């Protein structure tokens, strides 16, 4: 049920004719976070109608994956949401592990949690930077975020060999163990992170301009958010307490004590989405600390053989990726290639409500609403 543009009547005065300004924002627009296009109809500065246009980065990832072995799709999942390759890997591994019975060793589970929470820090901290960049802050918060992100990416590089395209998870464990001293370095980074967050919050959270720019902009009601399948921080910003880490308890999340921040009111505006992410980072640091305390030595690969050949079955594995629910749906037909391989991309489905949130707002708001949804076009277009 699309919300059509409200019946907009053009004001005609003194015989002067007026018409709407149609602007194609994107695919080269600086703040569409990639190659995304919004066909916007404007009355002055007010958005009267908005149509998202997808597909500029479409490469039919699903078809590619259906024509190669299960393992060979793993590096391609890195390229979906190229900010969070670790959680993408996990979601895929989780789905595949449901197809066959694989025991995952303890150490691998801990490392998975550590990697995924580090990824969440990376994503949220840079998303906030990008968001404030969309507000017009000339990149200062973004570069602070990237400064901290570098430290985490170094950790990823040490563990997996690559900074962004990690390709680290395997069915039944991880590709390799982390090098000596890695956990200490991680602890150092994690211990330093709250100090940075304090500074970041001081820079952003009380700024009058950010407050007045983001509050009351892009409201998303609870009912619409649930119905539209919004997930992740965006859903929690609309006041729904739903976190797949809590609901599904995948991996070993039930062992950690953490809280899920969600908004109090029913507003669900850009400010809520921004703040929920800021608060979530603190919780992630808590999880990381517990995981770093709890991790022990041991094997990192389960009993999975090299040949991954599941029986005829299907599985849907979902994780709480930083952007929302990332699901992988696999249908196995008994061969070494998946018969059907489907990605449930959170940022694609979160875009469902873009139109509803933008209509009636200003052009500048449309940009920050898009920024607050947190999309990565590698995932939207697949």
């Amino acid at each position, binding site marked *: 049920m699309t919300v059509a543009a409200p019946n907009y009547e053009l004001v005609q005065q003194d015989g002067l004719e007026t018409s709407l*300004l149609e*602007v194609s924002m994107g695919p080269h*627009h*600086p*703040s569409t976070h990639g190659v995304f296009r919004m066909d916007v109809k*404007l009355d*002055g*500065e007010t958005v009267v109608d908005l149509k998202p246009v997808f597909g500029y980065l479409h490469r039919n990832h699903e078809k590619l994956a259906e024509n190669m072995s299960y393992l060979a799709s793993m590096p391609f999942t890195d390229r979906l949401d190229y900010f969070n390759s670790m959680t993408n890997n996990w979601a895929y591994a989780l789905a595949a592990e449901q197809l066959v019975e694989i025991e995952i060793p303890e150490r691998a589970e801990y490392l998975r949690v550590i990697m995924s929470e580090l990824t969440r820090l990376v994503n949220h901290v840079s998303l906030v930077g990008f968001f*404030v*960049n*969309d*507000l*017009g*802050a*000339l*990149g*200062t918060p973004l*570069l*602070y975020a990237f*400064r901290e992100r570098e430290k985490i990416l170094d950790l990823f590089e040490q563990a997996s060999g690559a900074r962004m395209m990690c390709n680290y998870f395997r069915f039944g464990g991880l590709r390799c163990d982390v090098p000596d001293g890695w956990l200490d370095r991680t602890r150092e980074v994690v211990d330093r992170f709250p100090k940075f967050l304090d500074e970041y919050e001081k*820079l952003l*959270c*009380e*700024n*009058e*301009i*950010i*407050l*007045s*720019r983001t*509050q*009351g902009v892009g409201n998303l009601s609870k009912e619409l958010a649930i119905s539209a399948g919004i997930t992740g921080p965006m859903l929690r910003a609309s006041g729904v*307490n739903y*976190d797949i880490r*809590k609901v599904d308890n995948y991996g070993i999340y039930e062992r950690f004590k953490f*809280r*899920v*921040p*969600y*908004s*109090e*009111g029913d507003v669900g505006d850009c*400010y*809520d989405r921004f*703040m*929920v992410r800021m*608060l979530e980072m603190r919780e992630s640091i808590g999880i990381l600390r517990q995981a770093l305390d709890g991790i022990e030595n041991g094997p990192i690969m389960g009993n999975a053989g090299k040949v991954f050949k599941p029986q005829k079955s299907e599985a849907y594995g979902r994780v709480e990726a930083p952007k929302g629910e990332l699901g992988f749906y696999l249908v196995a037909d008994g061969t070494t290639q998946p018969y059907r391989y489907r990605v449930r991309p959170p940022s694609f489905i979160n875009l469902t409500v873009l139109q509803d949130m933008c209509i009636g707002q*200003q*052009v*500048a*708001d449309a*940009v920050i609403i898009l920024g607050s949804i947190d999309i990565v076009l590698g995932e939207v277009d697949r």
Partner: protein
Amino acid sequence: MTLDLIKDILLATVPLLIIFPTMFALTTWVERKALARIQNRIGPNKVGVPLTPYGGKLSLFGLGQPAADGIKMLFKENIVPTGADRLFHFLAPILSLIPSMLVLCFLPLDFPWLNGEQNSVKAFMLDGAVIFFFAITGLNTLAVFMAGWASRNKYSLLGGMRAIAQMVSYEIPLVLSAVVVVMIVGSLNADNIAKAQEGWNWFVFQPWGLAAFVIFFIGALAETNRSPFDLPEAESEIIAGYFTEYSGFKFALFFLGEYIAMFAISGLAVTLFLGAGAGPGVESLSWLKIFWFLTKVCILIGVMIWLRGTLPRLRVDQLMGFAWKFLLPLSILNIFVAGFAWHIKDANKETATSVVVWIASIIILYAAAKGLDRVNRAKVKPRTYQYGE
């Protein structure tokens, strides 16, 4: 027209044409360096003076960057979009540069070699210097809108429209805050205003002067399209606003015009509130006057860069609201406060009274500002969040 007059005219204008474009070049470098440091980067540090044709260079912290930029701009292709109005597209950058260069003459830069024989060449001695300044700066708006319209680009048009709305609105608080100084000094002559603040009698140290200075500075930011009021060229919203379609040297001219306008309006702020050339050691060395003046201008530019490195941008309606619902009432109130304070001080010259007046004015102005802020942003406040298990 004597030869002397021509000589004097040249002596009065050539230094301006040397100092300010040089400062422009340096400021672009300083801005890039400072922003880089604010953002924890290094900034330009490579381009320097080549020593031999085969290699080796003196890189001087990247001071060659402005020259390299200039050369690059010169050699870039001049692209005019199909269907653009070629004439106005060409005229706009020139028109944006001329008024900002012109108003530099109204800054009280008293070069010592111009020893007063031909006062008529000193533009700042004009009796209506301040009003003339605003009149000419207003032309900038035209250039910006011309660029926006002539580019035949929707983003440019939006930028141009935003620029007109913004510049026209902010001109009012700008002028009203300058009115306070004019009122106290009793003259529109920049030289008289500078003379009234000799020693440490800078108007910024008065409560009404401080308020007027803050309003003026905010207005100046908006007038020169600096962050957080850089809506006409808002990169994340409308690409580059009115100069989306400008390239090469036309773009460089816009850039130059923008920076010169920054110097001009900072110079006016220095003249009106920061004691113009006043500073330590001015009595013995008249050269220092120019030094202090330019230093103060540079400090203001530095603050502008600092703000640019910190603040996000306002939205159009908030920008207009800020001008009409916050700055305008405040500057009007400030005129009254200034008037009363000046009268009481004039009638009663005791120190105690002036301290009381000083404090009372500050309280009134702050309370008014706070009240206006609360009214304007009634719904905006920090929120609390809950945690689920």
